[in-house]
């Protein structure tokens, strides 16, 4: 102490002391505030999970069981992850309108906050695929349209049709159209494999390749119909129908007119 006290009247003592004091206060504050923040987040998350649980109990538990353990009519949701909930509820597939062959896309019943709460609740049950963040979904930057097209034709077109218009599966099941679907939902469908769709994990199709597929889908969606009316982009069936009705129909009309006798 004697050594220190020797410098107590030094001209640098006061500014140094001030700097130490400021650092001390700042450091204490930052540590203190950091602790507070993480504590509130945990609190917020547990409220979110609780909110989600309440929504689940009201809207989902009648089929999926009170603890999401699943019953005969509906599968267990333990371990399906937030991505699955975000896809199924966010696209309106869940809750199902009726117990038909397949949940169909419709206007979502829950808003974004409620979907987030439900997703948090289901994710809290066991770890599973997470909702892809906006940073990950930068398909415009990280994807390649041509590569995405090849991947789509290799992995998706056999069910979803060459232009992503959807197609029939067995026993009334179907692969829906992928047009007009949010990039987030396309990504989630690939990782979670909803309905009859297989899971395309990150080893089968890497995240970059998934983004390429999304980029190709978005490019097909935005592509104008270069040859005139698209006729649904479903191949020769509608073309044949038009050839017989409008094509031959018009020509027969003209033939009748040509063969009419002048009166």
């Amino acid at each position, binding site marked *: 102490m004697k050594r220190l006290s020797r410098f107590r009247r030094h001209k640098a003592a006061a500014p140094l002391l001030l700097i130490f004091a400021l650092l001390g206060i700042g450091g204490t504050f930052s540590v203190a505030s950091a602790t507070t923040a993480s504590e509130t987040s945990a609190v917020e998350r547990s409220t979110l999970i609780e909110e989600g649980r309440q929504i689940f109990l009201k809207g989902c538990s009648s089929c999926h069981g009170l603890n999401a353990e699943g019953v005969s009519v509906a599968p267990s949701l333990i371990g399906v992850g937030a991505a699955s909930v975000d896809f199924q509820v966010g696209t309106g597939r869940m809750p199902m309108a009726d117990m038909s*062959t397949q949940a169909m896309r419709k206007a979502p019943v829950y808003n974004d906050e409620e979907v987030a709460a439900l997703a948090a609740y289901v994710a809290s049950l066991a770890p599973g695929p997470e909702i892809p963040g906006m940073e990950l979904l930068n398909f415009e930057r990280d994807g390649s*349209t*041509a590569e995405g*097209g*090849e991947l789509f*034709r*290799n992995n998706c*077109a*056999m*069910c*979803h*049709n*060459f*232009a992503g*218009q*959807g*197609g*029939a*599966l*067995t*026993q*009334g099941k*179907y*692969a829906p159209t992928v047009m007009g679907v949010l990039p987030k939902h396309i990504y989630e469908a690939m990782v979670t494999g909803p309905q009859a769709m297989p899971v395309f994990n990150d080893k089968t199709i890497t995240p970059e390749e998934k983004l390429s597929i999304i980029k*190709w889908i978005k*490019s*097909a969606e935005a*592509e104008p*119909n*270069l*040859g*005139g*009316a*698209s*006729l649904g*982009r*479903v*191949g*020769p*069936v509608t*073309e*044949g*129908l*038009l*050839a*017989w009705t*409008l*094509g*031959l129909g*018009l*020509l*027969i009309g*003209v*033939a*009748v007119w*040509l*063969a009419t*006798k002048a009166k």
Partner: protein
Amino acid sequence: MTVEAKLGQVANYVDERTGAAAFLKKSLRKVFPDHWSFLLGEVALYSFIILLLSGTFLTFWFDPSMREVVYEGAYQPLEGVKMSAAYASALDISFEVRGGLLMRQIHHWAALIFMAAIVAHLLRVFFTGAFRKPREGNWIIGVGLLTLGIVEGFLGYSLPDDLLSGTGIRIAEAIIQAIPVVGSYLSYFAFGGVFPGELFIPRIYIVHVLLLPGAFLALITVHLMLVWYQKHTQYPGPGRTEKNVVGYPLMPMYMAKAGGFFFIVFGVTAFLAAVASINPIWLYGPYTPAQISAGSQPDWYMGWLDGLVRMAPPIETYFFGYTVSWNILIPGLIIPGILFTGMALYPFIESWITGDKREHHLLDRPRNAPNRTALGAMSLTFMMVTLINGGNDLIATHFDLSINQIMWGTRFGVFILPPLAFIITKRLCLSLQRADRELVLHGRETGRLLRMPSGEFVEVHEPISPEKAFILTSHEQLPALELPAVDARGVKRAGALKNKLRARLSNANAVAIPKVSTEDLKEIESH
């Protein structure tokens, strides 16, 4: 010298060297009957000319090669993708050749209309009995043209080497392989090795642009020359007999109408090509055997064949190390073989049943040949059921049905519905004959009611015009063939079984409501 004199000199110069004047004088006055249904064959003819013209345009840029190239053209979503030169050049025609996409679409729409017009023309000829003597040969040429059209259309569909084309070729390969014993050798022969190889597109290209169009031109020429020589058939009517043709001369009436009609057919085809997309190959992507699209379909004229294959149950048998795939063999080769052979031979089958070996230039009204009309309706129903199953996946998704339900429905439907169509159509024809008889006997119901002095209400009937009465009564009703099993001396005749079948068919064919006779009318008048 006047213009007329100059023209006369030129005409004389040509005539002195070719003798064309006599031929033209006769030909230009040739008479053709006038009816809209006689123009269906013309639609097919004009579509064929459009196909020749637009197809020639396409050959200027199409590269029929399966050499692998990297695409560097205008269509961004395929930038840098490996594909065959054939597909790349088809993309270039669509996006880089001026008017190329329009020409491609005109070519494809014209092909669909060509086939539709052929089928419509065939139905007209069948239902009116225009195939009867002396036109059996021309009927067979027509069946040949239809068959060639199906093949030619399929080859055209296969040429661009997009994902849909390749899928079609893959199915054709499967059908070739299904031929017992020699199938796999034939497939090696056609593809020059294992599917897809590098030879198939160049091979079908030369068949598509040279061999088959040549065959078409030859057959169409014979088809039309026969129409010319045998003269056109006509619908029954006053003044029309088996010995004359009532109509308009070729020049000027028919020349003007037919010439104008060509441009209308061209116009309708170009209109469709301008407003409606057909075969958007850039969306399908290049063909690789590992890929397939949901809802892959052939063009409509192959749809029935696809539907048959789709409904076939998976039956295979093994003989001495050879696999016989009945599931492909029956729907892909045997049934089409039976159908087309039966169709080609039908004129002979019908004349065998009726025993009618006379020439016919007056057409039948379909109701007056109930058996034939019912047979046609039966065949059409068969085709429609199989065609529906050809599009079962699209019907399932668009009408919220199960693809399995549609498949099972058509599996049963293909056996149940055609006979049902036969019975219903035959009864409808007989009912229409009955209605004709009523009309001739009692006239048209005017809807005017009269109250008689006694208080009774009666409807006033108006007699029909003599022209109409003639049309309703001029057809002949042939009795069934008399084919006794034993001859006059009580000896069993040769071929008794065949005769029994022929007699049964003849009896069924001769069922008719007796048409109004002169005695009937006298009877009515005496009231």
